[in-house]
């Protein structure tokens, strides 16, 4: 057991740290969404120019080929330096890895480089209004048409859909097959007449997500990934491609917010309030447990090569801690917390999605119960 970094790991961390401090893009611009978007595209280009955009990608595909541990260090340092996420985040953590794992040589040639350079933005078309947690029940239809497919249906929660060139689309290509078997994974061009993107306004008043409607949209055969009818397996790869060390960087983010919360509480003269102290300590402990838990699971993966279901545990810990943290902050603010534009109030509202996005708490508990504890399946 050694929780310090080795000399090589420390060298890598220092390299990341130096690069981030010299290339920090500064604060996100205020104002319109276009300016914010361009800011994050510029930031990814900067990362890519120095080989950091594809930190987890193998070198042969233009990545840095960093080890799992180095990726964890990298993401933690990004969180520590408070730099934005690269613009094409879904392409980098999901689309690219799927093309590498299931695509053929010409697909790799075609799709990978523009993901790294943010020339082509990717979005994900999995969830549907009637298919949330039960993803395999999705109904968007793919019908053979000459050398390609016609797509009809609707997707929802499509982050970046309004700026994306490509959509990772899972659609039903065989309505007679069992529900997991009749799916195909497509890369669909969003820039065509049969695709309509509508922003989905959320409780914060922003629209991070979209609804996407397909009406006879077209995908050529060469954009099928992993073969017709194999969509479920390919989709699972996408979902399993969670960033290594997600928990570690999430813990860094929580830790920064908690630090700010402690300052706020002290400023309000509540630092010796016993109830506040108990609540802050609980948050501090959950944050630390998340950081340490991710280090334990990382050690496990490095030893066995098998990523466990620990990601589900980390996700749950993170969401509940972030929700409790932001609620406490608005409690401290009292009547001031009524203001919609207050940063803490915004975070408190946004955090309500944490226990839903990327797998609801209930579904994650099912996964833990079935795969870790070996309890019988509900179905």
């Amino acid at each position, binding site marked *: 057991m050694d929780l310090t970094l080795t000399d090589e790991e420390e060298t890598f961390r220092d390299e990341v740290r130096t690069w981030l401090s010299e290339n920090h893009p500064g604060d996100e611009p205020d104002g319109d969404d276009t300016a914010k978007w361009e800011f994050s595209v510029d930031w990814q280009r900067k990362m890519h120019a120095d080989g950091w955009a594809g930190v987890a990608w193998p070198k042969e595909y233009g990545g840095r080929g960093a080890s799992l541990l180095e990726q964890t260090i990298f993401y933690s340092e990004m969180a520590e330096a408070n730099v934005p996420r690269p613009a094409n985040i879904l392409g980098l953590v999901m689309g690219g890895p799927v093309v590498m794992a299931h695509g053929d040589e010409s697909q790799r040639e075609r799709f990978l480089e523009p993901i790294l350079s943010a020339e082509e933005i990717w979005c994900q078309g999995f969830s549907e209004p009637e298919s949330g947690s039960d993803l395999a029940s999705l109904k968007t239809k793919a019908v053979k048409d000459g050398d390609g497919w016609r797509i009809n249906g609707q997707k929802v929660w499509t982050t970046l859909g309004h700026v994306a060139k490509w959509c990772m689309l899972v659609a039903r290509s065989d309505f007679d097959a069992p529900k997991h078997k009749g799916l195909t994974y497509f890369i669909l061009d969003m820039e065509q007449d049969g695709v309509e993107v509508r922003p989905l306004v959320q409780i914060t008043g922003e629209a991070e997500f979209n609804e996407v409607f397909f009406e006879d949209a077209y995908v050529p055969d060469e954009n099928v990934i992993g073969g017709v009818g194999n969509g479920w397996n390919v989709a699972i790869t996408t979902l399993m491609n969670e960033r290594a060390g997600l928990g570690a960087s999430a813990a860094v983010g929580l830790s920064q917010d908690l630090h700010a919360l402690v300052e706020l509480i002290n400023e309000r003269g509540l630092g010796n309030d016993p109830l506040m102290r*108990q609540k802050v300590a609980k948050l501090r402990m959950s944050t630390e447990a998340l950081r340490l838990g991710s280090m334990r699971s990382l050690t496990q993966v490095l030893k066995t090569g098998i990523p466990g279901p620990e990601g589900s545990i980390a996700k749950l810990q993170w969401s509940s801690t972030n929700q409790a943290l932001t609620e406490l902050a608005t409690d401290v603010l009292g009547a001031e917390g009524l203001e919609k534009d207050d940063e803490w109030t915004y975070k408190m509202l946004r955090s309500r999605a944490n226990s839903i996005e990327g797998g609801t708490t209930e579904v994650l508990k099912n996964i833990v119960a079935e795969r870790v*504890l070996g309890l019988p399946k509900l179905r």
Partner: protein
Amino acid sequence: MNFGFNDEQTEIKSTARQFLENRFKPSVVRELAEAGRYDEGLWKEICELGWAGIALDDEHGGQGLGMVELVILCEELGYACAPTPFLANACAGLALEWAGSDAQQEGLAGIAAGDARGAVGSPEAFIDAEGAAVPIVFDEDGARILDPDSMSFERIDAIDQTRGYSKPSSVDGEPLPGDVDAASQRICVAAAAELVGIGQRALDMAVEYAKDRHQFERPIGAYQAVSHNCAGMLYDVEEARSLTYYAAWAADAQPESLPMAAAMAKARASDAAWEITKASLQVHAGIGFTWEHDLHFLLKRARAGAQLFGTAAQHRDRVAGLAGMGSGN
């Protein structure tokens, strides 16, 4: 970076699991608990394995290993719910090792060998003081070695029968001159480890029962109301375990992190063991409330362990202070 056990530690863990499973079968635990006694033969065996002095210096007769190894044993002893004076003796060893004078440290040989046991406690309650040669009291004034010849311990009729609890007639004694905080923080880590083991056992029992027990034509573990309860127990035990292992490592390798780490470990493990044993009883339902089922030994030991060496709330208050709460006020 490596947050796992090395080969030797893995070996210690599996040996301990096997030995304790074999020696402290549930029927043995029950018999000893109901009789309110320890098995001297089993204690000798434990001492012959070198466990009693595992974290003590070899010059004091110990094994020269660290807190990580001690934590492994405490966790396994908790898992077995083993009635032994191990924890009290090990904690007294930590007290003398970290805060004792040279002369006081002569008592370490008997502690490491297990034939002149130590015990620790507060003015309100000691564990395993009966028959101990070196009882050490901790209170706000520091730590002192009591003289068993000039005072007595009155047995407390405690809910937890797997361990002896008693109240000292006097707490006057010879002060430990060294770093009492360093000692008490390590004691908290050892106590936390035992609670992690108790929690894990109660979780394992709940899962096993939820697979076996059928109601409405299916195993109760297939119902989310039950399975999510079990998943919650896993989060509790894993959080407590991460914090406890980290604190043990910090004690050995990064002592500046120990004050915070030890407080977090004890607070989380106290809550986790109690939450898990409670939830496990709920999963077991009626049978878990009966005396004939073994779960109550774990539940009561979890409750007792949460009340010793500082409550979760006290440790959390310490964490808050170390996290900057109240500074500048």
